[in-house]
């Protein structure tokens, strides 16, 4: 096991992939000479050269579409879209081509493309740089949507994604890049389908993914001091969603609280809530609760941004509302 940051873990996974498979190449804005907008690909250009690490013009549609074409042509591209905000410019290629070509061609075409995208708010980047739209992607059949929250997952899930025959989107929350963790570089295979119970508990299931996992764990710690044992689930993957793990947890705790940084209305937390209702209705002691982002374009000022994003205090308060007071 090696200790490294999330950023280093992604880099290590890409290095390993580039080394071991000639078909793999990285393409995106500023991934080469600049070293990556989040310094993830630092050093890769020097090691692998400009054929394998390609700086693309600011043409999201073209280079994501080219990634699709390259995958059709036998390559295994890792496309980096700088942030989920800019991915909107490539949405046509993603939705109408990447996700659709297999079924639309009657099963003839396979698009084994991996797309890495930084996501989320919390660094005062303001309204056009702070979106959390993974839920929109998770809506689309034909692709997989992964949300690694730990360095170990950042490493393993990328390597596993490169073995998938269809497009895989990895959403890396921008606040996680410097977080440290242990990764196992000798492991042979990695799971991308199961949610993880990162803290076992009996009183309430706290369900979250990606950037809000840290705050959720903090909240769980403080809830424990108040006598409430929370079970924390890191979803890891939004599509396909690991419903059995969620349902099993709710069957045990009888209460669910979903924490999702995205705007509440129509967010992915609504989907999880619906699935809990459909599959675990009889196990519920309280309605499924949600702590989500405030419905406002992300403001710049720090105190306003903090008020917009889910915080540990809100998670604690929401949990206390649905867990009965212990005598």
């Amino acid at each position, binding site marked *: 096991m090696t200790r490294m940051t999330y950023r280093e873990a992604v880099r290590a996974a890409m290095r390993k992939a580039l080394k071991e498979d000639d078909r793999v190449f990285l393409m995106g804005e500023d991934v080469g000479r600049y070293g990556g907008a989040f310094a993830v690909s630092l050093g890769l250009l020097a090691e692998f050269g400009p054929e394998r690490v390609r700086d693309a013009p600011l043409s999201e549609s073209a280079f994501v579409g080219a990634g699709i074409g390259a995958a059709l042509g036998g390559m295994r591209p890792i496309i980096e879209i700088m942030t989920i905000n800019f991915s909107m410019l490539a949405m046509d290629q993603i939705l109408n081509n990447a996700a659709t070509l297999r079924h639309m061609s009657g099963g003839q075409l396979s698009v084994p493309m991996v797309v890495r995208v930084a996501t989320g708010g919390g660094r005062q980047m303001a309204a056009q740089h702070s979106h959390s739209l993974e839920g929109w992607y998770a809506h689309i059949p034909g692709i997989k949507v992964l949300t690694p929250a730990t360095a170990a997952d950042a490493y393993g899930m990328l390597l596993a994604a490169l073995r998938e025959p269809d497009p895989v989107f990895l959403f890396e929350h921008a606040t996680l890049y410097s977080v440290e963790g242990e990764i196992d570089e000798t492991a042979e295979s990695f799971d991308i389908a199961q949610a993880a119970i990162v803290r076992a508990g009996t009183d309430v299931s706290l369900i979250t993914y990606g950037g809000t996992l840290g705050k959720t764990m903090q909240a769980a710690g403080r809830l424990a001091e108040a006598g409430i044992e929370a079970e924390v689930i890191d979803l890891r993957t939004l599509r396909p969603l690991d419903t*059995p793990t969620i349902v099993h947890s709710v069957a045990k705790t*009888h209460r669910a609280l979903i924490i999702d940084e995205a705007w509440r209305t129509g967010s992915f937390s609504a989907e999880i809530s619906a699935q809990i209702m459909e599959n675990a*209705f*009889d*196990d*519920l*002691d*309280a309605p499924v609760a949600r702590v989500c982002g405030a419905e406002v374009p992300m403001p710049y000022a720090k105190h306003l941004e903090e008020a917009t994003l889910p915080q540990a205090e809100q998670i604690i308060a929401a949990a206390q*509302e649905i867990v*009965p007071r212990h005598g």
Partner: protein
Amino acid sequence: MAEFVMPQLGADMSAGKLLQWRKNVGDRVERGDIIADVETDKADIEVEVFSTGTIEKFLIQPGEKVPVGTVMALIHEVGEPTSAVPAPSRELAPAPAPTPAVAVLPLRREPPPSTAEVTRLHISPVARKLAADLGIDPASVSGTGPGGRVTLEDVQRAAQAQAAKPSVPAPELDRATRMRQAIGAAMARSKREIPHYYLSTTIEMSRAIAWLAQENLKRSVEDRLVYGVLLLKAVAMALREFPELNGLWIDGKAMKKPEIHVGVAISLRGGGLVAPALQNTDRQSLDELMKRFRDLVQRARAGSLRSSELSDPTITVTSLGEQGVEAVFGVIYPPQVALIGFGKIVERPWASEGQITVRPVLTATLSGDHRVSDGHRGGLFLAAVERRLQEPSQL
């Protein structure tokens, strides 16, 4: 005779109005000629004819609006392709049924339980379920949840209060009561969710008993085999041919299990019942099964079973012969999908080859989950068990 029909001139066109005919009856037309002007919602369109021949008759007059597909004219075709290439069917695809307006069903609310008042009860789903399982009237429980909602804790508290004597403060439920509750809840759920069917058959046991007596002569008293072990082994081996009975019902689906772990129902002193597994029952010798069965019973009564033994069973066998019961029609333990019951061995008149004798017989029953198996298969299974008990040396 070829038909000229009102053509589909756009994705959402359902009808068109004939403005005028561009040709006359008797005129010769060629494929591709404009034969009419038709008005649609979008524009007036010149419509071509696809046949070559002479116009025989007009069936629609200018000014008439007709649905797409309506025959508007008849054309006497000339020079059909050679017989080697018959003309394609010109049958119009049947007009699609008009899209029914999506029926918006009124929200159907579950009728309140017949014993409840008309005022709506606020109770959480899990609390409602526990109240039903314990036979507690939810309306009698005071709710401490938001808006007076009755919660799980509220029902549990009410259950304890009911069990306690009025002058004594409610004690913590003892283990036996909790077990009874759990069993009760499980059995109620089983009956509620699983559509049970029942089959029984009478098994002639003289061969098995005789064989067993012979075998036991070779063994010391401590190692003697009881006939129950023959029953377990017969069931396990028969299950190999009927894997659908050896599975679990999980998430609304039957899941076959590759290994056969027969759960044996063991009654506990002081009430209560457990049904731990004899792992890989079909692969154990009778002696091994006997040893492990004895060990299971002892540990069950001492309360030291392993959790895997409790969660492993893929099917359960219950034998109430010792209690003097002739036939057992049991309730399946979810998530299993079958339960086999054996009654006591009794001597009964037995007709065979035209003669009546007295033979020891045993009633074997199958309670089956009708979602997973049916009487036909269940019957065949019981027959397989019966067959094996006629050849005890093969067990």
